[in-house]
């Protein structure tokens, strides 16, 4: 009901919302913490009137009414203030008096979230818990048939190669030039831009990666995303751990060019972003309110303007030209010492790109980003309904390389939903056995290292609004200062170290301690005959 007592088509009640606030009057102390912390002001302290009808036993006196006023939490029901289920209220409540609960039926808000003719936009993920990767089992446990290893006892050095590995005869024929190849850890922190992420989150991840490299000897690499790279990082030894991304917005590239002569180290690689799995075919937009002085400095843009990354590179007209132009230009910038590879959204046309790259000796890899990837901002339609699953896409690409005899030459990097349900190592291992040389992980890391409360059941997903209650995707100091970069770094280290243990648990029974079981699909099984057939893996029941 509206304040004027009228109903409108979009007048919603609590029952119509996806998330309902359960509030316990008995436990509440009216401390105001929940309302202070709610990112969307979905709740307020409100006045309630209560009526008690007093009827004396035996009706010896005239019955009467007693009216009382009490105060308590009320959930707002207008579209703008609909609860997103982030649960910050429950997090700060000293008495456990409040909690968002998911509606027991599909909500009605979805029919009204296009107010003003603007379709729903949000950050986050696909809102589907389904995962073919989760359904895969590692069925080759070679305790007695292979030299089985003990993940807890044996020494492992799980590494992968990023870069073009030419056959010896070609390498020799190429006038002495060898394509650059990096030996790195198979888990790559996916590119999330400085801007999409808060400065504290971004620095925390970078710091954690540096720690993993320098303190634990794990050559983990991290992508910058398309938002430039802080000038100090460009001029530091830590640049070695960084994969610089160039995308259609070309943000921050003048600063990178200026820094080139002063770089102490080459970056790990250059990633040319053509697409993103979470929102294939669509570009990015950093909203003006996120473009503060700092973002402006890093991206080399004016402050307070919205920054679009168009869906396509403005001067690219074909795969051939894209490959020739971008890969060559980027390689040239670092004297052909740095691997350069494109990243595309997984698509039914991935093989066309791959075959093109196979003919180009400068192409260092191909990154495929599946539909389960995350994003800071996208149209709901792109997130929920567009894209290609990563499993079959990476499998097709790998088998295609096998067919042309180049499976050891062009590494495939798989991304998009790795660890979406918390099974990071299992998903990564499955992708590796399907043919990936490495995996990129984004939102799973944000959840683990930043404490993101988002979920595949549409919880929170406020990344695009700048209101991230954990300070992960906000540029508002009041929010991002909730996040301590040091703690983020510590958590990242925990995540990667435990990932490493889990990955060892999977590969040890295969007798692998150094080289990864890339494409070793006879180790994979699934209890789904059609999936097994489609992916050429074992059908096990």
């Amino acid at each position, binding site marked *: 009901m509206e*304040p*004027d007592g009228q109903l409108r088509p979009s007048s919603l009640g609590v029952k119509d919302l996806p998330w309902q606030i359960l509030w316990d009057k008995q436990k509440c*102390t*009216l401390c*105001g*913490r929940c*309302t*202070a912390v709610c990112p969307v*002001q979905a709740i*307020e*302290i*409100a*006045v309630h*009137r209560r009526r008690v009808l007093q009827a004396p036993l035996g009706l010896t006196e005239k019955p009467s*009414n007693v009216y009382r*006023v009490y*105060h308590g939490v009320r959930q707002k029901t207008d579209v703008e203030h609909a609860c997103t289920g982030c649960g*910050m209220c429950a*997090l*700060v409540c000293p008495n456990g008096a409040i909690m968002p609960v998911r509606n027991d039926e599909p909500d009605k808000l979805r029919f009204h979230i296009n107010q003003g003719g603007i379709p729903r936009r949000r950050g986050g993920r696909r809102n589907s818990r389904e995962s073919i990767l989760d359904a895969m089992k590692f069925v080759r446990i070679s305790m007695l048939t292979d030299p089985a290893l003990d993940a*807890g*006892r044996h020494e492992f050095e799980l590494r992968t190669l990023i870069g073009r590995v030419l056959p010896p005869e070609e390498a020799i024929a190429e006038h002495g030039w060898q394509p650059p190849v990096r030996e790195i850890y198979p888990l790559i922190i996916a590119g999330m831009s400085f801007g999409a992420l808060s*400065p*504290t989150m*971004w*620095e925390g991840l*970078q*710091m954690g990666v*540096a*720690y993993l490299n*320098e*303190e*634990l000897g794990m050559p983990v690499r991290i992508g910058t995303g398309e938002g430039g790279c*802080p*000038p*100090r*990082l460009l001029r*530091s*030894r*830590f640049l070695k751990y960084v994969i610089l991304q160039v995308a259609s917005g070309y943000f921050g590239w003048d600063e990178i060019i200026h820094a080139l002569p002063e770089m102490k180290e080459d970056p790990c690689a250059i990633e040319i972003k053509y697409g993103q799995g979470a929102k294939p075919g669509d570009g990015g937009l950093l909203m003006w*309110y996120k473009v*503060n*002085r*700092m973002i402006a*400095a*890093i991206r080399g843009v004016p402050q307070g303007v919205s920054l679009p990354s168009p869906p396509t590179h403005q001067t690219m007209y074909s795969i051939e030209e894209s490959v020739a132009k971008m890969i060559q230009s980027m390689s040239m910038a670092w004297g052909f010492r740095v691997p350069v590879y494109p990243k595309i959204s997984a698509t039914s046309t991935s093989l066309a790109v791959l075959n093109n790259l196979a003919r180009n000796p400068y192409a260092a890899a191909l990154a495929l980003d599946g539909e389960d990837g995350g994003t800071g901002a996208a149209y709901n339609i792109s997130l929920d309904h567009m894209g290609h699953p990563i499993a079959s896409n990476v499998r097709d690409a790998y088998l295609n390389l096998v067919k042309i005899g180049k499976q050891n030459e062009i590494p495939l990097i798989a991304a998009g939903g790795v660890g979406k349900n918390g099974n990071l190592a299992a998903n990564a291992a499955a992708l590796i056995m399907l043919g990936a040389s490495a995996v990129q992980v984004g939102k799973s890391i944000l959840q683990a290292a930043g404490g993101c409360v988002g979920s595949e059941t549409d919880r929170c997903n406020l990344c695009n609004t700048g209101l991230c209650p954990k300070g992960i995707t906000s540029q*508002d*100091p*009041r*929010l*991002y*200062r*909730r996040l*301590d*970069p*040091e*703690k983020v*770094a*510590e958590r990242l*280290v925990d995540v990667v170290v435990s990932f490493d243990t889990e990955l060892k648990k999977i590969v040890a029974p295969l007798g692998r301690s150094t080289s990864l079981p890339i494409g070793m699909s006879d180790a994979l099984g699934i209890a789904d005959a059609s999936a097994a057939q489609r992916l050429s893996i074992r059908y096990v029941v």
Partner: protein
Amino acid sequence: MVPTIVIDGMENGLRVSSRVLDERIQKAVSDGHRRIEVIAYGQHGLGGRIWTSANDPVELRIVGSSGQRVGAMGLPGTRIDVEGAASDDLGWLNAGACITVKGHATNGVGNAMAQGKIYVGGDIGGRGMTMTKHNPRLDPPELWVLGGAGDFFAEFMAGGTAVICGYDAAHGDNVLGYRPCVGMVGGKILFRGPIGAFSERDAALRALDDTEWAWLTEGLKDFLGRLGRTELLKGLTSDRNAWRVLAARHSYEKGAAPRRTMKDFREQSWDAELGKGGLIGDIAFSDRSPVPVLATGNMRRFIPVWENEKYLPPCQANCPTGIPVRKRWDLIRRGKIQEAVDLALLYTPFPATVCGYLCPNLCMQNCTRHKADLEAVDTRILGKASLNAKAPTPLPDTGKRIAVIGAGPSGLSVAWQLRLKGHRVEIFDSRMRPGGKITGTIPRSRIPEEVIEHEIKRIEEMLAFHALNHPLTKDEFGDFRHQFDIVVIAVGAQKPRIIPIPGSERVVPALTFLKESRLDRAKVGRRVVIIGAGNVGCDAATEAFRLGAESVVLIDVQKPSSSEREQQNAKDAGAVFLWPRFTKAITADGVELRDGETLGADMVIMAVGDLPELDFLPEDIKTERGFIVVDDTFRTTAPNVYAVGDSVRLGLLTEAIGAGRKAARAIDNLLRGEVPPDPKGRGNVQTEERLFVIPPGRVKLEYYDPRPRHFEDIASCAANCASCGGCRDCGMCETACPQGAISRKEGEEGFFEYTVNGELCIGCGTCAGVCPTGVWNLVPNEPLK
């Protein structure tokens, strides 16, 4: 040892199988042999499982080539001496045997040994002393090695003691081999000589304590004695500091892996490489240190604001006269009843007549209380009480002269206001009596005559009134323009509008009818039809009944525009409303409609509005469709001539009074030269008129009794007024604030305000949530750069 039996592992030139050799050893024991020599040819598992040895010891000497697993599952009382070297898994699962090997032993020595002792006179291979146990019921196992250990020593060791003497070891630079102690959870290793890296997570390195040293030196004597190498004792024990101990860490010690703290890494590596402030220290312009999730002060996302009287209440906003209704109730709540009553006269000369009786009370119609289905507080009571209001004292004389033509509601309003501002105002009217429609046409049934008399008298005491007794002429108007600084036209609409339809000459104009009726001179028909069901039509209907009509039908081409109250009065009197009805002609029979029906009538009254009589207007004052054209300040197209009321636009009494007030303000500004004339009226608007109406959702009606009721007196009205947007000074916010951040500050002359201590406030909005009047608002804090 002198054996009582020699068992040969070779028979007839053929090697006896491990199974048969074991059966022969077991048979020899059961035959009573206690000293047995075995000539071995690589057979496995020799010397183990001698079940009776615990109570009756058995000695076994192995010569030749012992195979794998010598002494496997060995038992207490079994003594095994291997004269040469031993193969893999020496003493596997040893449960008590004492095994001595003179030479080297290969991989897996003592694997899973739980009791007993193993002595090796040379080096041992890889994976020695792994998975050993210490059963608390029995003595722990021991392994003594004269040389060094191979790689992966003591993996998952869970008990017992290993002694590695490091004497003449094959790899003297590392007597424990590569990566010992992985997964070690119990027991200890006493060793002598250099070692490489070991699993620091699992084991800790330290010196021997006195007990251990004593135990070692004593044990070495026995060990070396069994090997026949007692000459080495002196050398091995000459330097206690050459010996060290690797002992398993307790589980609780393992938790803290020896990792560098991130804080240290950040300071010593990260910031050291990047510079002060880390990654973006050079381009970040503000503090980035962590803040708590519930922040105060500048770090609050939202801040409360006390927006007292920053929004208009709907009553005031909807009053065309602009009477500050909320403020009047507030004064009454404070006990200042006279002040509340007097306040009205600053806005209208007719507070009792109009607010108390004749106005449809837009204030009440728009009362916020309706949003919760509550009765509006009754401003008519307040209006009626204003009969006793005392006229304010005018400002000092300005000497400016103003002529107001017409003494109706708008004329009297503009004159009243200008007089209060100190100007000399003269009013001219064609009638003898001021009041216009109030005294001329509005039926007596709607208001007691003495109320009007009282208020007209109050006006006459303030204003100079001239009765012209004739319609104004062009010449007279011209004279006024010369004689006065300003002329205000407020002649009203005196010319009834008659729709030119066949038979229109038969109709009686409503205006004429009402004027006559007020003088009790009107004649009325038996059956009356009134064309036009507006407020005037309704008045005509009730008057027609009063004068004796038997039936009255009001027709209109659309939904009647009359107010609900007026319609109800007419219906109560017996009137019937019909719409939409389109009149075709008026005949002797009555009103003929376009649809063919005829409404029988012997009197037809037309009430479709009136037009001003403006024959006196000069050319330079423009009209449009019969009404005078004015700008937003009510100025006509001629300078110094203003026009208000029905001569400009037909409307309610309160609208005419409001127009008079606004025009007076513009005229006053013009005469004082303070504000330049502006046709849009900008600069001519009071602050309060620029304010928005308070959003109804901000006012909390839950604080009031929800039962339907009528208000009987001023006090209960005042108490139940929600005071929309104006602080009631109830102290709810101060009490409700969980942080105790709100306090009341008092100033002079009853001034007060509520303020927030930002250092305590967390921006929860409780104040805004509980505030009955909607004065508190929670707004986003200023963005931080």
